[in-house]
């Protein structure tokens, strides 16, 4: 069951992010002072409205786009960058290895929030900046996992066999090593998506993510906080989306890893 439910929820969230504005054809920026603080379940405003009378569902949908696409895109970039660095370092050894891995250590030593603050202060908050910062932050994690895994797979006899049977370097790396390090990378990727959502909404909360009035889940939590006593839903709804997205993506890795393992295929 677990292997169906989790990818399903994740799929719905992603679909919501991609197609949300189509499903909820309401302008997330349209203000309506008369319809302020409409409660959950109001006809036309399924999740109610906020302090400016903007439709919360529409804002969540647009926010999902920003939130999830930022997380996915930055994870993908970090994954490809980190894996290239890690595998190259582990496979080539010697000077290249030292150079690449010490570079990764330097990246690891930078405090993430400080870096984010710095970049946003210099470049100004925008979606591409956010993706870039997050990708930079998560690259070392992937590089370390890929590096360690490659080192251990590389010493296994089937790699020696490939060398003896004349496999070119490229097919040893792409055909023999990569498929065998995918499982831990999937786990790392799903955790990274989760923490990218967390960091992204954290930055949004601090006003360093997406510039208002464009909605972001973190920004909505920050806005709703002021009305916590009177209208708690304003803060709880976007918070709930953040939590469920993080939970889903961090548990997804396990499921994907099971699906990737040939031993788990064929109805066992």
């Amino acid at each position, binding site marked *: 069951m677990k292997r169906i439910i989790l990818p399903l929820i994740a799929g719905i969230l992603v679909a919501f992010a991609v197609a949300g504005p189509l499903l909820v054809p309401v302008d997330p920026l349209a203000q309506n002072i008369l319809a302020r603080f409409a409660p959950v379940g109001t006809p036309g405003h399924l999740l109610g409205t906020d302090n400016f009378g903007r439709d919360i569902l529409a804002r969540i949908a647009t926010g999902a786009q920003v939130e999830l696409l930022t997380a996915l895109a930055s994870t993908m970039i970090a994954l490809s960058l980190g894996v290239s660095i890690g595998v190259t370092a582990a496979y080539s050894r010697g000077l290249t290895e030292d150079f690449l891995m010490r570079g990764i250590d330097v990246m690891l030593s930078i405090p993430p929030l400080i870096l984010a603050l710095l970049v946003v202060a210099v470049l100004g908050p925008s979606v591409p900046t956010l993706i870039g910062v997050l990708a930079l932050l998560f690259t070392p994690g992937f590089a370390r996992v890929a590096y360690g895994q490659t080192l251990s797979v590389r010493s*296994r*006899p*089937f790699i*020696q*066999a*490939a*060398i*003896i*049977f*004349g*496999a*070119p370097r490229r*097919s040893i790396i792409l*055909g*023999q090593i990569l*498929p*065998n390090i995918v499982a831990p990378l999937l786990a790392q990727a799903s955790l990274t998506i989760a923490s990218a959502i967390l960091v992204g909404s954290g930055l949004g909360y601090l006003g360093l993510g997406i510039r208002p009035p464009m909605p972001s889940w973190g920004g909505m939590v920050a806005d709703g906080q002021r009305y916590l006593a009177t209208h708690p839903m304003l803060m709880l709804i976007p918070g709930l989306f953040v939590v469920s997205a993080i939970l889903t993506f961090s548990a997804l890795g396990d499921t994907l890893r099971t699906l990737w393992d*040939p*031993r788990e295929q064929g109805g066992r």
Partner: protein
Amino acid sequence: MGILTPEATAIAKPPLLAVRGLNIAFGDTGIVKDLSFDIAPGETLAIVGESGSGKSVTALSLLGLLGPRARVTGSIAFGGEELLPYDFGRLTGLRGNDVSIIFQEPMAALNPVYKIGRQLGDVLRNHLKLSPAEARARAVELLHKVKLPNPEVKCDQYPFELSGGQLQRVMIAMAIACRPRLLIADEPTTALDVTVQARILDLLRELQAEMGMSILFITHDFGVVADIADRVLVMRHGEKIETGPAGDLFSAPREDYTRMLLSAVPSLERRDFLEDAPAPSDDTTVLEFRDVGITFYGRRGHELKALDGIDLTIRRNEVVALVGESGSGKSTLGNVAAGLLRVNRGQVTIDGRLRQGAGTGKDLHSPGVSMVFQDANASLNPRMRIGATLRAALQWNRRYKPGLDCSDGHIRHLLSEVGLAPELFDRFPHELSGGQKQRVGIARALSVKPSLVVADEPTSALDVSVQKTVLELFRKLQRQYGFACIFITHDLSLAASISNRVVVMNRGRIVEQGPAAEVLRNPADAYTRALLDSIPLPDPAAQRARRARPAGPGTHP
């Protein structure tokens, strides 16, 4: 001790351990079915079987070590006291005091971060009221007793500083610390070299004679059985096949399965030599080593000469067995021939082309060489189907030999040639048995039409019965295709049964070489003699006679 105690008196005493109708199951899978046996005081019972026969599970069940998932029913009576159902409080009192156990991997059984003396002392203090100083004195005394050299020094060393044989002695010291009445030995010599194995078996026999304990000895090796057992219990698929005094079982096995196991043990005595093999008629030199040396540099300037001045020539059609103990450099030599290691010194020529030495490039790879690995499972990519693995090897090699056929039909033909069903084409490695995987390894090695095959202990991880069929296949294919072969093994009788020439290695040097029959019948070098004398003979009478002889001058230090 079995030689001195007639069987009759041993049986007449009440048994120390009486197992009746023992059933062990994990979930719905029965592992041991309706097993009954006795062990008399002072007796050695060997349980023999292949992997999956339930022998180790039986041994562990005696001490309640199987964990909560195992369902153990029947009766286990130790010294007249019923152990089933388990009372773990009482078992704790039994473990280490009356019943002790030693394991296959002494390195894994000792804690790597504590010194030897401390670990041994902890065991003593768990059971006896001793001060730390007393415990240490007792530990040194025990290490003396198991004939560990320099016990005072060894006490202050960590497990990684001792050899495998020395660690097994420490384990034995730990096991006999409280003078147990029953010692369970689960394949205690399987991970050790033959010369070390012989001395560990001697030690067990001496300790048994001195302390009068019983031994339950788990093994798959009938040579070891002949050396140590009074009685033998043969198991298969969790059931008893037959049981009887060791002498009778070896001279007149009743069951086909026992006969098969016995005949599968290669024996030097049964003239199991490859004498009908034609001497290499083809004079083409395939591999030539000239003064090859490799030195590994460790930390603190530590140097290890893995290969030291090796000269070796191998011709077409020739099978050369490389024998030696672990650390002798035989696998290093194989890896050099396969192009996996760079030499520091000398020249390597393969198929008439200089591959390593002055003036050669960075690329070590020689297309004419292929390899069969010891661990068949690890040598196959777990993410690739069998057919894809074979096709990949063919496609890679096509860069050098454009004539190779990569079609599915040809790959299926290769599978059938090594006795595998063509349906395995679409399977993953984990769906195959160990023997099948090694056949795939052989198919892959031969698919590229090599001039030299390096076979690195290709059968040592397999059960004896499987070992035999895989060896026969290998021998047949070698004759059919006539490739040269380096067959690396630690097993001299195996070397004799497969090779035209035996090369004995010790500490990175070749100490002796010549035709298999000659080297093994009339060994010229002391080290070869020591190796030969250490192989347990699968015949209790012969083994006893040999043991009675004083150790020759060839005894290895």
